[in-house]
C-alpha cells in the first residue's frame, strides 16, 4: 500500500465558528494505482489533497485521523521529513495555474527553484548551467514547444494550456512516487484538456507513478482512473472500481449525480438533486446526504452509516444496503 487515509477529520476555524469539513474520510491505494475522487464544489476534495501533503491553511485543525504514505505518518512527521516527501516523493498539480504560479517571476526562476531544491535534497549542488539543462529537459517532457521562450516568459504571457503544462512539469519534478492532481484542467478548452489528460496519462505510465485525480468532471475520472471514491460533504459515500461505479452506482447520491450528467449519445438527463450542500458549521449528525436524499429514513438523520461491502470491489456507506 502506498497511501492510506483513515478516519480523517479536518476542521476550519473562523472567528465565531468551526467548519467541520472532512468527517472521517478514508482512502487506500496500492502502488501504481490510479485513483479518482469525484466531488462537487465544496465537497472537501481539495482539503483532502492538501492534508495528504500537509499544506493545509493555518486556520485548519485535524482533531482525528491518520495518513500513511509508504512508512511515513504524514500527520506526525517533522518538517524535515515532510520537506523531503514534498520534494522527492509526492508532486501536486494545482487547480488553477494562474493562481499557483507566481505572477512576478519568470517561469525559469520558478522552475530553477524547484530543480535546485530537489537536487540539493539528492545531495548535489547544481550550477546555473545544470539548472538550465534540467529545465529544458522537463519542459520537453511535457511537450512544450519553444523552450527558451517559455523559460523567459512570465505566466501571463503563456496560454492556459501552456501554463498547465508548466504546472505539470513542476509537479512531476517532485513526484517520485505519487502524483496528486486537483482539477488539472479547469478553465481549459476541451481540445486542450484532451491533450493535457493524454500527456498526464502517458507520463504517469512511463514513470510508474501512482495518481490521485480529484475532479467534479465525471467523464474525466472515468477515463483516467482504475478506482474511484465519491466524496460528498466531507464523507466518502462510495468506493468501487471505476467501471463498476459508473455501471452500477449504489449510493443514492452517486446514482443521482451520474444520472444528472448530460450524455452525448442520447437526449434526456436526470432531474438533478434538490437542495444544496449542508452548512459545515452544523452539519447533519447522521448521513450528511440525508436532507437531500429521496430515500432517507429516520435512521439516516441520526446515525452515520458505516461501510458496507456490496461485493469484493465495491463499498458503500448507506443505510439502504445494511
Amino acid at each position, binding site marked *: 500500500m502506498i497511501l492510506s487515509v483513515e478516519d480523517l477529520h479536518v476542521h476550519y476555524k473562523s472567528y465565531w465558528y468551526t467548519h467541520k469539513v472532512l468527517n472521517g474520510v478514508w482512502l487506500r491505494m496500492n502502488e501504481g494505482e490510479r485513483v479518482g475522487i469525484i466531488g462537487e464544489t465544496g465537497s472537501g476534495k481539495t482539503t483532502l489533497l492538501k492534508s495528504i501533503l500537509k499544506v493545509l491553511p493555518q486556520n485548519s485543525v485535524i482533531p482525528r485521523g491518520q495518513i500513511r504514505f509508504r512508512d511515513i505518518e504524514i500527520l506526525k512527521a517533522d518538517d524535515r521529513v515532510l520537506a523531503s516527501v514534498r520534494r522527492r516523493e509526492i508532486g501536486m498539480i494545482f487547480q488553477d495555474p494562474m493562481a499557483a504560479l507566481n505572477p512576478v517571476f519568470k517561469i525559469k526562476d520558478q522552475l530553477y527553484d524547484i530543480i535546485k531544491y530537489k537536487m540539493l535534497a539528492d545531495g548535489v549542488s547544481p550550477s546555473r548551467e545544470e539548472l538550465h539543462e534540467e529545465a529544458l529537459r522537463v519542459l520537453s517532457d511535457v511537450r512544450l514547444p519553444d523552450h527558451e521562450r517559455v523559460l523567459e516568459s512570465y505566466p501571463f504571457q503563456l496560454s492556459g*494550456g*501552456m501554463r498547465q503544462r508548466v504546472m505539470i512539469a513542476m509537479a512531476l519534478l517532485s513526484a517520485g512516487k505519487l502524483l496528486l492532481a486537483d482539477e488539472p484542467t479547469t478553465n481549459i478548452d476541451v481540445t486542450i484538456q484532451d491533450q493535457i489528460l493524454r500527456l498526464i496519462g502517458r507520463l504517469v505510465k512511463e514513470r510508474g507513478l501512482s495518481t490521485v485525480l480529484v475532479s467534479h468532471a465525471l467523464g474525466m475520472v472515468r*477515463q483516467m482512473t482504475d478506482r474511484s471514491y465519491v466524496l460528498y460533504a466531507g464523507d466518502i459515500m462510495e468506493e468501487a472500481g471505476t467501471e463498476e461505479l459508473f455501471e452500477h452506482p449504489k449510493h443514492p447520491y452517486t446514482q443521482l*449525480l451520474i444520472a444528472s*450528467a*448530460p450524455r*452525448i*449519445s442520447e437526449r434526456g438527463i436526470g432531474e438533478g438533486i434538490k437542495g444544496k450542500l449542508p452548512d459545515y458549521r452544523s452539519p447533519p449528525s447522521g448521513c450528511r446526504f440525508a436532507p437531500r436524499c429521496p430515500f432517507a429514513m429516520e435512521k439516516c438523520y441520526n446515525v452515520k452509516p458505516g461501510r458496507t461491502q456490496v461485493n469484493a470491489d465495491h463499498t458503500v456507506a448507506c443505510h439502504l444496503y445494511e
Partner: protein
Amino acid sequence: MSLQNNFILNVSDLRKYFNIKEGTVKAVDGVSFSVKYGETLALVGESGSGKTTTGHLIMGFYTPDGGQLTYKDSYDLSVPIKRRSLELKRDLQIVFQDPGTSLNPKHMVKDIVGLPLRIHRVTDKRELHSKVAELLEFVGLSEEFLFKYPQELGGGEKQLVAIARALAPNPSFLILDESTSALDVSSQAKVLNTLNKIQRERNLSYLLITHDLGVVRNIAHRVLIMYLGKVYEEAPTEEFFRKPLHPYTQMLLSSIPALSKEDESVKPKGIESIGEIPSALNPPKGCRFHTRCPFAKPICSEREPPDILADKEHVVRCWLYE
C-alpha cells in the same frame, strides 16, 4: 418560399472587429445563421471563437462593423441597446454565465425578479408580489425564496432566479450565454430541465452559447460550430452527433471525456486533438483551422472553403467535401 416567416432572427454576414494596440482582432468575421420560432440553436466553440461576441451583438452591447441583424422581420438589431425601443428590449433577454455576479447581492429575490416587471409595466403594483411568486414557481422555486438574498442560495438556485428575472417581461427570445457552465452537474440538470419545460410551454426561442457538447445534445435543435470568428459547420443536433463532418468538429467530439460506452461510440475515431488555437490578431489564411487539421491540403491554407450542403440543413465549410 417565404422563409422569412419561419425565423425569429436572421443574422447575415455579421462582423465585429476590435482595434487594440497590437492590431485588429476580427472577433466575428462573416457569421450567418437564422433561428426559428420555438427553436434552440446552439452556438458552440472554444474560447476565442467569437460566440459570446455574437450573442452580445444581438443584445446590442456592441454595434456591428458589418452585416445585417433582423429580428422578427421588422426590427434592426444593429442598433445599440440604448437606442432600442422598450418593446424590443422587453422581447430579447439574456441569462449570463455566472449567477454569483449577475444578481445584486444587496437585493432580495423578490426585488431582483420584480424589477423588470416594474420597468416594463407587466403588472400593476398590487399584483407585483403574486406575479413574482408565480414566476418563481414556474422555474421550480417555492415562495419561501421571495425574501432570500442571493448569498443564501445555491449555484443552481441562483441561476433559476436569473432565469425567472429574464422571463419576467415575457420575452420571446432568450440568449443563454454559458448559463450552466459554472454549475455542478446536479444543479445543471435542474436548470436544463427547467429550460426545456419553459420552451415547451411558452414557445420561446433560445440561442444557446456554450462549449459543452453534452448540454447541446440535451437541449438544442440545431448546432453551429464556430472557430476563430467563423462558422465551419451547421447541422440539426441528431445529425450532428451521428455524422460530424468538419475535422474541427470531429476533434471537439473526440476530446470529450466519455461517461459511458455509448458515449464512447459517438466519438469519432482516427482523430486526436493537436495544437493550440492561433492568435485572433493574426488568424491563418484560408481555412482558419488548417494549422491544426490533420487532413489539410495545400488549398486549405490559400483559399477559404465554400459552404457545402452535405445533407438537408447540414452545411459544412471544408475543402475535403468539395
